[in-house]
């Protein structure tokens, strides 16, 4: 068995290949080709397989994390899309929730609607909230709409009617008409894309899906063909925002489900490696060049959010709950009009990059601050493929210090503390604000800059343990090797929680289960690898917020009391109180189908003769530590030379090809047999 994970980001394309026969994990990093991502992939695939003496045809599994959908949305480069909707509501797409984009900035703009007003058509049809037909669908109106749209060269059509989540008949009829009269058009029905209530969110999601449809389906299909042409018999998979993979054919139908394809693979990778190390509950800290992603994983399962906003567009499909901060290693530090130090969101990017790259950048970045404080080696990055220069970094930081009226070292300290504070905020969002205490978690640091900042973050949060995986820079590609197949299904019916309602719910679940098994059959998932998860969206009557509560014993519940109890416990945990005597409603049933896959059984790292890591030490340099109040002579270790059982005492620096780990004084790190660096902070 030889499996391959491919993650394409804005800057790099990463590949991770696992050869189970030889027990070898091989990784490769090359620059992305933004104008044709598939070419970057094929180059990387060809080079890596040749290097590892593997024929592409021998690959038994290929999975891909992609930013094609995200970029199309950010850059407004999707298809010419039309909308067909209930009479009286075509402007909902623009009105949205009526809120303005920024509370104070009078120059801020709303995102350009993905379908302009003149391509939005209204048709007579209307259901009441309980599904009663008030007005039957006027096929005449649909016909008129399509006739005019036919002249508009549309490539995609979204259909969204009020209450289609209760009864999709009208949408299906309209969809059939569109397929017949506008052949070749990509069609999205809201009842299929996001069958949930609240019309704006459903509409926005359906429109985004249609808008991305033609482009993403072309891309993933081409990717599928190229893979096939290389002789790889097993059709490839695409990663989704929910951290699970799906066939190319399915991804082509649901591009809106791939908007977090890349970052979610990193979370899955972190969850897998931590679990293998016996750690179940983690907070992931993925800090790259321009942004940082943070997520919470509970008992091996990443937290899921039902909805998020991307580039100003609301998308309601289950996604990993990833909080993104616009700050990374390349983020630029600046002084605001009141004289305060700020960092980001502007980034120096890869070109010119931080001042220390020596490519002409003069702005002080987070990376430059790390260089000035001795935390980052001024000699090399990417194993000497890239040199960091101390002098321009010092110059840039000194300039910043002048603006602030402080010494260069204080300016560098300031930059790190501002960034640190931004990161703390993001971690609070995924933990404290959701009712979880971060101190009960292990921080898993990855991305090029994650391990540099994790130790201080952990100390400030009171987190006791940090795990740095062996190859922090390619964790997203690695995560794809372990990701399960995953399909999220939902059925929305607002019903009181009582015994009679449960019978109806059981029926609803049966319907979802039928859909799930049909999908698992199509994907060829063996019976032993199938797993179903049942959950409910519930709320108190009159509340306008739902909580997703898992079915207490995983099965379709037969006991209203038990389900109610589960809701009350969740309400208490999230909101801090629960009213025992108030009426509870069920809003939706959720069924998630998994096709589990065996993750690679990575070979154990050779054991060290003793705990002393002296053999891995490459030298010593002066590094600034806040607690010491100055520069301290600090041992530098080489990550690749560390062996299982080695123990390191902070202050210390561990360097490797794509990342640097900082240990504070008083912190200890142990190397485990899976080559993870496990830092114990000894904190609160």
């Amino acid at each position: 068995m030889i499996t391959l994970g491919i993650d394409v980001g804005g800057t790099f394309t990463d590949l991770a290949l696992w050869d189970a026969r030889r027990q070898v994990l091989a990784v490769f990093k090359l620059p992305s080709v933004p104008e044709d991502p598939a070419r970057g992939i094929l180059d990387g695939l060809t080079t890596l397989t040749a290097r590892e003496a593997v024929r592409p045809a021998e690959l038994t599994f290929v999975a891909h994390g992609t930013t094609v959908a995200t970029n199309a949305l950010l850059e407004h480069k999707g298809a010419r899309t039309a909308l067909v909707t209930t009479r009286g509501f075509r402007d909902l797409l623009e009105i949205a929730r009526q809120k303005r984009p920024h509370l104070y900035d009078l120059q801020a703009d709303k995102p350009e609607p993905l379908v302009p007003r003149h391509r939005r058509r209204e048709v007579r049809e209307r259901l009441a909230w309980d599904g009663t037909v008030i007005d039957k669908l006027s096929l005449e109106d649909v016909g008129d709409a399509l006739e005019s749209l036919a002249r508009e060269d549309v490539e995609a059509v979204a259909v969204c009617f009020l209450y289609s989540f209760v009864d999709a008949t009208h949408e299906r009829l309209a969809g059939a008409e569109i397929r017949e009269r506008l052949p070749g058009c990509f069609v999205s029905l809201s009842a299929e894309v996001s069958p949930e209530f609240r019309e704006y969110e459903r509409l926005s999601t359906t429109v985004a899906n249609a808008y991305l449809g033609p482009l993403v389906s072309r891309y993933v299909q081409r990717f599928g063909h190229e893979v096939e042409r290389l002789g790889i018999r097993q059709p490839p998979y695409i990663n989704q925002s929910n951290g699970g993979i799906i066939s190319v054919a399915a991804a082509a139908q649901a591009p809106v489900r791939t908007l977090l394809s890349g970052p979610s693979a990193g979370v899955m990778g972190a969850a897998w490696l931590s679990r293998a190390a016996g750690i179940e509950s983690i907070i992931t800290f993925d800090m790259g060049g321009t942004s940082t992603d943070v997520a919470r994983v509970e008992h091996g399962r990443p937290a899921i959010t039902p909805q998020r906003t991307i580039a100003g567009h609301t998308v309601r499909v289950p996604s990993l709950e990833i909080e993104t901060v616009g700050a990374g290693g390349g983020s630029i530090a600046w002084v605001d009009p009141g004289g305060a130090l700020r960092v980001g969101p502007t980034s120096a990017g890869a070109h010119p990059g931080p001042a220390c790259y020596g490519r002409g950048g003069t702005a002080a970045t987070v990376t430059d601050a790390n260089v000035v404080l001795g935390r980052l080696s001024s000699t090399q990055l990417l194993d000497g493929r890239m040199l960091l220069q101390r002098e321009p970094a010092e110059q840039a930081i000194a300039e910043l210090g002048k603006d602030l009226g402080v010494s260069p070292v204080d300016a560098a300290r300031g930059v790190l503390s501002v960034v640190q504070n931004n990161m703390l905020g993001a971690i609070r969002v995924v933990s404290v604000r959701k009712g979880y205490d971060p101190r009960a978690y292990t921080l898993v640091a990855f991305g090029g800059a994650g391990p540099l900042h994790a130790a201080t973050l952990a100390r400030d949060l009171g987190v006791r343990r940090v795990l740095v995986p062996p190859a922090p820079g390619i964790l997203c590609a690695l995560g794809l090797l372990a990701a399960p197949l995953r399909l999220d299904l939902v059925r929305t019916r607002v019903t009181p929680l009582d015994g009679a309602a449960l019978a109806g719910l059981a029926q609803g679940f049966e319907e979802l289960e039928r859909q799930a098994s049909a999908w698992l059959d199509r994907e060829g998932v063996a019976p032993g690898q199938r797993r179903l998860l049942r959950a409910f969206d519930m709320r108190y009557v009159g509340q306008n917020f739902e909580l997703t509560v898992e079915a207490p014993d995983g099965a379709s519940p037969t006991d209203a009391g038990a389900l109610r109890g589960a809701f009350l416990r969740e309400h208490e945990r999230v909101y801090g109180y629960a009213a025992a005597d108030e009426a509870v409603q069920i809003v939706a049933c959720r069924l998630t189908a998994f096709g589990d896959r065996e993750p690679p059984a990575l070979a154990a790292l050779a054991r060290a003769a003793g705990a002393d890591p002296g053999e891995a030490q490459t030298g010593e340099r002066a590094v600034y530590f806040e607690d010491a109040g100055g520069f301290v002579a600090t041992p530098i270790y080489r990550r690749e030379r560390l062996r299982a059982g080695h123990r390191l005492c902070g202050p210390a620096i561990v360097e490797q090809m794509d990342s640097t780990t900082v240990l504070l004084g008083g912190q200890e790190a142990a190397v485990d047999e899976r080559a993870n660096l496990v830092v114990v902070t000894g904190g609160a």
Partner: protein
Amino acid sequence: MDRITLDVIGAALLSIAEEMGEALIKSSYSTNIKERQDCSTALFNVRGEVVAQAEHIPMHLGSLIMIVHEILKRYPVERLHEGDVFVGNDPYTGGSTHLPDITVASPVFADGVPVGFVANIAHHADGSGRQTHSIWDEGLRIPPIRIVEGGRLREDVMELVLLNFRLPRERRADFRAQFAANRLGAARLQELVQRYGRDTCVAAMDASLAYGERRIRAAVRSIPDGAYGFEDWMDDDGVGGPPVPLRVRITVSGDRIALDFTGTGAQVPGDINVVYLALVATVYYVLKAVLDPEVPANGGFYRAIDVTAPAGSLVNAQPPAPVAWRTQTCQRVADLILGALAPALPARVTAATNGANSAWVFSGTNPATGEYYVYLETIGGGSGARATKDGLDAVQVHVTNTSNLPVECLEMEYPLVVEEYALVPDSGGAGRFRGGLGIRRTVRVLGHDTTFLGTLERQRVAPWGLRGGGEGGRGALLLLSPGMATPRELGSKVAGVRLEAGDVVTIVTPGAGGYGPPAERAPALRARDARDGKVSSA
């Protein structure tokens, strides 16, 4: 003291306010706080100055500035205890800017000595379909009183308070969330003091205030010195009377700015009066928006601005003037200040927005459940055209930013059907850049009688354009009963209107003014508006 450390603590103080806000929204019960986020949180120093605030609507910018002072006036600091919580809502004793906004404030102690205060304000939408004629008509007035004493809830006071509300269970749950948000804020502030020490934390609070002041003064210096005046007119006095003048004179000299509202009409019999706190909130909002959207909302920012208005005027109302719908006037005052600053800062202001807080309230008994219901919704409109681009269509502007209620939630809950939710073509003022469009929302009453309240502004006086830009469309309230051929205009502010099954009400909200001469509009923009049907004759 090390300034980097002060900055770190300053950021942490803001995080505390934000975290309190998140907790309040998460744990509150009512739709208005939870879904529409009509609430704000703040942290104060021991002198009662706002050090950090997380406001979710700008109306709350000034709403909290008096609460600690009013508490200290009644309860000297030596009589305060750890675990005390004060509650207040009266606009005439610093509690808020109208009665539904209820403030909850708590002193924070570290080692037995007060180190600051935390407070939050939340809009308790308990429903009122009535028109009010004095503050006594508007509900229970609560001066700052101690509702929790040393951690123990005074059940008698709570009972008195709850007895005055229609939905006491919901109110109790919202109060519980407000208390909990303060407890969280207090704990966080105590952790900070424990970590950095009292003196350092106090110095950081002072540094935050100094920073806010420095920043806004730097922005004020960018306004050319001079005196800038503007005049506009409210549609009426709130009860169908004549238009009421609004006047401001803004004087800028170096880093000092003063706004004087002398010349504004006297307070009115209708419920659109503005207390001084609401006036300063509006001023703070506009100056932040125009001068520096990122300036921190704290006492340092506030002390750089001087606001005067004659006592007894519409914008400095005295008891017992009714204030329930003060937002109508605040929206107009915000436009007024933009108009005054236009000659000085033409690239930063906008033309007049829809300038209203268009709203309606339906209240009655749901025939399906037999339960009393109150459905309140505020509806956005156009935002003013800008120097380099069109105004935004269909948004909430200025001091409010509440979201709509989804049709699929509304109809599930209330015996009403929404028939239309649309942009109003031609309501954007013409110009080189077009004003934003207003909204039409139409509701049909199903199988029961209901009581209706509607409140609008700019039904008579249209939103003005800037530098040759045209006026935006006016608002309207329309009623179409079964058997009527054409709808009837209800007026600008109506209450107690009896609606019957089958009646259809439409609210048309105002558009906004245009910017620059219409003749200079780029052909591509004209063509787009014509194609999109946003302008019928372009």
